[in-house]
C-alpha cells in the first residue's frame, strides 16, 4: 500500500516539480492534521510530491509531536510560540482549543522516509548529505525513483556516489537483469561492509550446494565486485591500523620525551616520571573542575588553559625533587633509581589521599569528540588526531629549545662534559634544575594529553613507566631523534602484532624484542660514538 502511494508521489516528482506555490497544499495539510491514518498517509505523499522544502517543517513537527490542530487551522508549536503550518506566519495568541495531532508508528515510518526524500532535494548541502547517509543505512524499493530523481540533479562529489550506491543496492535486490548487472558493477566502488554482505548474499549457495542466484554472469560480476570491495575494505583496515599505530607512537613519544631529557641527557634515572605524568593529568582534572564551576560557558576551552597549568605544576614538582633529593645522588644511578621510586610511591599515596583512590572523570571538550570518517568503517577520532599534532608541536618546541636557546646550549654542554662546562662558567647546578624541570614539565604535558583518552587515577603513571624507559633505551640514551624513531617503531609494531595476536601478547612480544635487541646493541639504535672502552 505504502509502496504504491509512494510511487504515485514519485511519479509526480518525476513529472517535474511544480512552481513553488505561495503556500503549501491546504487540503493536504488539513488532511494531515485531522484525517484518519490512511488519509494522513495520502497527505504525506501529496506533500512529498509537491517537493516544497517547507513541508519538511510540518512533517518534522508531526514526527516529534509538535503539530496541533485548532479547528481548521494547523499549528506548529515549538515551546511557547507557534507558527501556521500553511504559511509559516507566527500565530499569537495561541487559540485555546488545540488538539495534538497523533502519529502512530506506521505514520512515523512514512514521515521519516518522506523527510529523507524531501531533504535529498534540499538546497543545503549538509542536509542532503545527512539524508543520503540516512538512506544508505537501509532503503527499500519505494524510494528508488526518488533517489534516481535526486541523482539527476546531484553534482556534489561526495553525495552523488552515496546515492548511486544506495540506488544500486536497491536495484540489486529486485529489478530486471540488465539493471541488476549494472547495479553489481556500480557496487564495485563501495568500501562498506554492508555492500560486502550484500554481494556475498548473491554468491550464497543453498543447502544442496547449488547457487541461490541462477544467473551465472551476474554471479561472475558479483564475484569481481566482491574482490574489489574486499580489497578496499582491507585497505581501510590497514589505514585504521596505521593510524592506531601512529596514535600509540605519539602517546609513547609524549610519555618518553621528558624521560629522554632527564635520563638521556642528564643520566638521571627518574622512576617517578610516571607519577609526574599522573600529576599533569590531575592538574588537567582540577582545571576542568574550575572551569565547570566558574566558567561553564567557556568549558570547551579548559584544555587550552590546562596545557600550561599541567606543564608548570609538573615542572614545579620536578624542580623541587631535583633540589631536595636527586641533586645529592648525581653519579650514583642505581641509588637515584631507588630514591625516585620512593618519591613515586609517595606521590601516588599523596594523590590518593587528596583525590581518592577512584579514577576521576576528565571530559573531552566538544571539539575533540567525534572523528573524521575516511571510510564507512574507518573513523579517525579527533582526540587522537589532536594528540598526534600536539606531540609534534611539543617535539618541535623541545628541539628548538635545545638547539637554539641559551638553556639548550647549556644543557647540551653539561651533558657532553660537565667539568669543562663548569670551567667555562656554565652554572651546572642551576642548569640541572632547569633541565629536570623541563623534563618533568613535558611529563605533565603527556599527562594532560593522556587524560583525554584514558582513565585518570593514582596508578596512571605506573602503566607508562616501563614503556617510556623502553622507548628511551631502545632509541639510545642521549639521542632525541632516536627516541622519536623508537616510539614510532614500537607503536606501529605493537599495533601490528596486536591486530593478529591480541593486546597482551603484543605487549609481551615487544618487551621480549627489546630485551633481545638490547643484548645485540647495548647502546640503543643510535649510540653516541665514542672511543672509550666503557662505550
Amino acid at each position, binding site marked *: 500500500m505504502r509502496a504504491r502511494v509512494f510511487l504515485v508521489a514519485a511519479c509526480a516528482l518525476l513529472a517535474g516539480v511544480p512552481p513553488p506555490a505561495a503556500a503549501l497544499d491546504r487540503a493536504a495539510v488539513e488532511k494531515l492534521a485531522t484525517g484518519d491514518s490512511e488519509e494522513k498517509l495520502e497527505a504525506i505523499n501529496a506533500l512529498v510530491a509537491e517537493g516544497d522544502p517547507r513541508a519538511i517543517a510540518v512533517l518534522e513537527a508531526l514526527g516529534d509531536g509538535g503539530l496541533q490542530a485548532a479547528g481548521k487551522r494547523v499549528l506548529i508549536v515549538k515551546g511557547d510560540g507557534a507558527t501556521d503550518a500553511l504559511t509559516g506566519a507566527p500565530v499569537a495568541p495561541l487559540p485555546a482549543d488545540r488538539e495534538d495531532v497523533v502519529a502512530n508508528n506506521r505514520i512515523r515510518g512514512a514521515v521519516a522516509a518522506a523527510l529523507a526524500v524531501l531533504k535529498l532535494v534540499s538546497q543545503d548541502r549538509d542536509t542532503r548529505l545527512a539524508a543520503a547517509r540516512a538512506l544508505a543505512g537501509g532503503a527499500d524499493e519505494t524510494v528508488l525513483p526518488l533517489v534516481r530523481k535526486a541523482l539527476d540533479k546531484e553534482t556534489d562529489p561526495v553525495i552523488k556516489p552515496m546515492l548511486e550506491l544506495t540506488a544500486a543496492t536497491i536495484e540489486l535486490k529486485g529489478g530486471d537483469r540488465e539493471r541488476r548487472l549494472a547495479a553489481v558493477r556500480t557496487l564495485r566502488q563501495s568500501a562498506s561492509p554492508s555492500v560486502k554482505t550484500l554481494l556475498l548474499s548473491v554468491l550464497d549457495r543453498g543447502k544442496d550446494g547449488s547457487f541461490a542466484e541462477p544467473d551465472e554472469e551476474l554471479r561472475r560480476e558479483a564475484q569481481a565486485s566482491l574482490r574489489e570491495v574486499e580489497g578496499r575494505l582491507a585497505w581501510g583496515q590497514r589505514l585504521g591500523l596505521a593510524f592506531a599505530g601512529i596514535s600509540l607512537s605519539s602517546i609513547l613519544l609524549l610519555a618518553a620525551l621528558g624521560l629522554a631529557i632527564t635520563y638521556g641527557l642528564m643520566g638521571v*634515572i627518574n*622512576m617517578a616520571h610516571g607519577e609526574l605524568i599522573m600529576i599533569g593529568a590531575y592538574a588537567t582534572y582540577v582545571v576542568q573542575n574550575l572551569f565547570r564551576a566558574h566558567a561553564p560557558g567557556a568549558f570547551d576551552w579548559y584544555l587550552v588553559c590546562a596545557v600550561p597549568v599541567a606543564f608548570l605544576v609538573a615542572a614545579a614538582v620536578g624542580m623541587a625533587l631535583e633540589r631536595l*633529593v636527586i641533586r*645529592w*645522588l648525581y653519579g650514583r*644511578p*642505581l*641509588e*637515584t*633509581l*631507588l*630514591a625516585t*621510586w*620512593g*618519591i*613515586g*610511591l*609517595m606521590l*601516588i*599515596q*599523596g594523590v*590518593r*589521599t587528596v583525590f581518592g583512590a577512584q579514577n576521576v572523570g576528565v571530559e573531552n571538550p566538544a571539539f575533540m569528540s567525534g572523528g573524521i570518517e575516511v571510510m564507512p568503517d574507518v573513523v579517525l577520532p579527533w582526540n587522537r588526531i589532536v594528540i598526534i599534532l600536539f606531540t609534534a608541536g611539543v617535539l618541535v618546541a623541545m628541539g628548538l629549545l635545545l638547539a637554539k636557546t641559551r638553556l639548550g646550549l647549556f644543557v647540551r654542554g653539561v651533558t657532553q662534559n660537565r667539568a669543562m662546562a663548569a670551567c667555562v662558567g656554565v652554572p651546572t647546578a642551576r642548569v640541572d634544575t632547569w633541565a629536570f624541570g623541563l623534563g618533568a614539565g613535558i611529563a605533565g604535558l603527556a599527562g594532560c594529553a593522556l587524560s583525554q583518552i584514558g582513565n585518570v587515577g593514582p596508578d596512571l603513571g*605506573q602503566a607508562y613507566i*616501563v614503556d617510556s*624507559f*623502553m622507548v628511551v*633505551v631502545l632509541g639510545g640514551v642521549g639521542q632525541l631523534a632516536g627516541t622519536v624513531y623508537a616510539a614510532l617503531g614500537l607503536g606501529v609494531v605493537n599495533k601490528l602484532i596486536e591486530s593478529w595476536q591480541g593486546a*597482551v601478547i603484543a*605487549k*609481551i612480544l615487544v*618487551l*621480549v624484542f*627489546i*630485551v*633481545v635487541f*638490547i*643484548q*645485540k646493541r*647495548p647502546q640503543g639504535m643510535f649510540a653516541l660514538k665514542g672511543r672509550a*672502552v*666503557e662505550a
Partner: protein
Amino acid sequence: MGPISATFSRLYGPTGWIVLGAAGAGLFIVIPVFALAVPPGSAFHVSQYWVTLIGKIMCYAIVALAMDLIWGYAGILSLGHGLFFALGGYAMGMHLMRQIGREGQYQADLPDFMVFLDWKELPWHWSGSDQFWWAMLLVVAVPGLLAYVFGYFAFRSRVKGVYFSIITQALTFAAMLLFFRNETGFGGNNGFTDFKRILGFPIATPETRVALAAITGAMLIGTLLLGRYLVTSRFGRVLAAIRDAEQRVMFCGYNPVHYKLAVWTASAVLCGIAGALYVPQVGIINPSEMSPANSIEIAIWVAVGGRGTLAGAAVGAGLVNGAKSFFTQAFPEYWLFFLGLLFILVTLFLPNGVVGLADRLRGARRA
C-alpha cells in the same frame, strides 16, 4: 687446625657463630615449643599468625640474601628478582594444586580453574607435577635456566648498570602479563590457592606450619653460610673486583662473564627456593608477585639492611617487612608514605644501611 675448622673460622668469628647458634635454637626449639606445647591461653604462646609471619619474613630474607649476592657483591642491580621468586612459587604451587586431588569445589581430577575454563586434560607443562621430586626439580631448574640464558646473553654483550636493571624490569613485567592470561595454564589473575596438603600432611595445621617455618629457617641459615662461603672465597674477591673495576679485572686476564653468570644464576635459584617455601606458608601465589613494584622492594630491603653485608640484607628484609605488617594493619593509608620515605632516606643518608650505621656508631664510641 684442620681444613674444616679453617673454613668455619673463615665464615664467621666466635661471636657470629654464637649468634647463629642462638638464632637456630630459637627457630628449632623455642618457637616449636611455644607454638605447640604451650596452650593458646598462655602469655608465652606463639600464635599461628606469628609462626606464618616469621616464616614468610624468613623467605623474604632468603630473597634479600640472594639479591645482596648480586647487588652488594657484584654490583648488578636486578629489578626482576620477583620473577624468579614467583617462578619457584608457581612450581611449588602446581604440585600443591595436584595434591588437592578431588577435594576441590568441582570434585574433579583437574585443578578447579581448569574445570572452570572447561579444559579436559592437563596441559603439557603440568605433566609430572604430581611428583614431589619433579616439583623440587622445577623449583631449582626453571629460575636457574631462565637466569642462565638471560644472563648469558646480557653479560656476554656487556649490558650493565642501569640498562641491565631496566631490562630485568621489562622481563618480569612481560612475565606478569603472560601469567595473567588464562590460557597459559597458571590460573590467570587468581593464580593458585586453596591448597589442602603438602606431602600428605594437611597444610593449615599448627604442626605443619611450625615445620615449614623451621625448614625455612634452616634454609635461611644455610643460604647465609653459603653466601658467606662464596664471598669469602677467591670467587667472592673476583666478584668484588668486578664490581669495583670491571675493566681492570678483564685486563688481569679474568673473564667477568663467567663470574657474573655464576652468581646471577645462583641468586635466581635461591630466589626460586624461597618462593617455593613461601607458597605453602602463605597459601597463595598469583601473578602480582611478578609486578615490577615487588621486585624493586627487594632492593630496598637490602639497602635498608646494608648492602655488601649478608647479615645486613637479612636484617633489612626483617625490618622492612615487619614494618609493613605493622603499618598495613595499623595505618594502611600511610604505608606507601613510609615505604617511599624509606627509599629516599636510606639512599640519601644511609648508604651502608643499618649495619653501616651500627658500625659508624661503634666507631664513634671507640674514637
